[in-house]
């Protein structure tokens, strides 16, 4: 008996037959890698003081030293241990990032659900206001707010939360707009379920996947934004270390001690990459692409 492998050749279907097993493995691999990287970040952040070999603020006459057995990544311009500052500084950067994104997520969730579910005038007003915020370039807005309020950690968090709220709200609103029309929501409404329960029990669970992915991506953006603002001197004030600030200081001595730049730069890239990998892994595993 002859067997022929035929491929799809219709005008209507563009995508070639995908092998689910292959795709799933890729997604799971990415997700696993992302989780491992995230675990490294979390462990280092939580146990920073225990892990750091030196007091990150302790100066020494041994400035701008190269890597040695004692100082693995060398020392900075006033003789502080770069590795220790990197470990402790990560704490500040990641904490600001996490809290800011959490706030943006909370605000975006509430606004997006209200806007998408209620629709009509409420939707119009919320989306118009958010559009105004959204219209500003992230940095310009952040610089303006931080410059006006002063570069403290709470202000930085608030600013970043405000900047990212519109994007989060949109991520929530889009799917809510369609899910609220779905049959099972209508069925629950016809049974007499209250509006609040409809939103929380029947609409929200259906839009969780895109929100999770968007949150992870926003985390990676935010790390970058936080370090960039710190780099520009709008971050947490010295002497407490943070990655953006360290990069900024090291830049002045880049020719003398290039390694002092590599440390914070690598850390920033690693952290940003963590959340991008995580987001892509989640996207594959949660199947957000084929989300209707």
């Amino acid at each position, binding site marked *: 008996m002859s067997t022929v492998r035929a491929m799809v050749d219709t005008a209507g279907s563009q995508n070639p037959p995908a092998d689910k097993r292959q795709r799933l493995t890729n997604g799971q691999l990415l997700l696993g890698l992302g989780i491992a990287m995230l675990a490294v970040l979390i462990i280092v952040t939580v146990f920073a003081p225990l892990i750091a070999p030196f007091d990150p603020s302790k100066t020494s006459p041994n400035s701008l030293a190269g890597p040695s057995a004692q100082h693995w990544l060398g020392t900075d311009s006033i003789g502080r241990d770069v590795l220790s500052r990197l470990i402790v500084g990560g704490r500040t950067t990641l904490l600001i990032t996490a809290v800011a994104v959490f706030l943006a997520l909370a605000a975006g969730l509430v606004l997006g659900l209200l806007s998408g579910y209620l629709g009509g005038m409420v939707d119009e007003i919320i989306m118009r206001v958010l559009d105004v915020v959204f219209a500003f370039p992230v940095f310009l807005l952040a610089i303006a707010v931080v410059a006006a309020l002063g570069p403290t950690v709470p202000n930085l968090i608030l600013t970043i939360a405000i900047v990212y709220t519109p994007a989060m709200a949109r991520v929530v609103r889009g799917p809510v707009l369609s899910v609220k029309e*779905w*049959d*099972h929501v*209508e*069925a*629950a*409404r*016809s*049974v*007499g*379920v*209250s509006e609040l329960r409809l939103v929380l*029990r*029947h609409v929200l*669970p*259906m839009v969780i996947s895109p929100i999770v992915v968007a949150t992870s991506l926003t985390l990676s953006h935010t790390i970058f934004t936080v370090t960039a603002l710190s780099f520009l001197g709008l971050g947490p004030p010295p002497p407490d270390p943070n990655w953006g600030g360290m990069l900024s200081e090291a830049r002045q001595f880049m020719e003398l001690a290039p390694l002092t730049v590599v440390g914070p730069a690598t850390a920033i890239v690693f952290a940003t990459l963590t959340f991008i990998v995580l987001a892509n892994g989640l996207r594959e595993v949660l199947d957000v692409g084929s989300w209707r």
Partner: protein
Amino acid sequence: MRLAKKRPTDAPLLQVRDLSVVFPAQRGNPPLAAVKGVSFDIAPGQTLGLVGQSGSGKTTTGRAILQLQKVHQGSVELLGEDLTKMSSSNLRRMRRHMQFVLQNPYSSLHPRMTIAQTLTEPLRVHRSVPPSQMRERVAELLELVNMDPAVMHRYPNAFSGGQRQRIVIARALAVNPDFVVCDEPVSALDVRTQAQIVTLLRSLQDKLGLSYLFIAHDLAIVREVAHKVAVMFGGRIVEMGNASQVYDTPAHPYTQMLLNAVPIPDPIIQRKRLRLTPPEFRFSADEDHDGPCSHGENHVRTGTAPWHQIADGHGISCRYWPPTS
């Protein structure tokens, strides 16, 4: 457990009068009158079949009766209370008397709620069963629709279309309603499953004294379940009567055309039917044309509804009658 309000025993369970629904203007499209002055009654324990082609307004009528769609005009009285004028909290209370079975059993169940969760939701909302007896009631409901109660902890994806529709029906029956709107309840199912669900709906009606508004495009299915039939066209009812009146002696040309188009599973008859050229009907859709209708009456002048009683309980609209010329 009826409402305290005293009602005469022969009163219809549901009384719809002059119901109109207008979809507001959207993106440059003018407002659309989807339902225009629909009136009918449904008696306790009876089924009204609402048939018509897509876009005829039959689904919108069903949703408007359940107040899932804003009513523009008219009244909907269930158990003697006008639903259109009710506060939202009273309306939610009234929902235990009226339930909804949707067309697509694949989308009308929450995919991440177990069958037990889905079935207890209406019970919780209406506090009709104490929490300790929920499980028992869920099992009872599943047995009512001929399903094994052991499946209650599964998710909808474990079930076939027909089984899901049974669960949807069980959910609708959870709070002992008097009236159920079934919107194309079997059109997404295979023919053998269709027959099973239709049989189930009929036996539940006999057992529980339910009233149905049975909305469907399939005239043959409606014939199997309906006591009375209303034919919709362009947002209006063009013919209404007992099932045998409408099916055996259709009076409106639109009804005749619909019935003639339904394929009959008999090769000899069906071949002949296909050979017949269908007549072209030109409906006078003119809203208030000043002149005699097909029955020689000028409704604008006499101020009467364009509706003609042609037999006891059998009426047709003359609005869409082809011009006599």
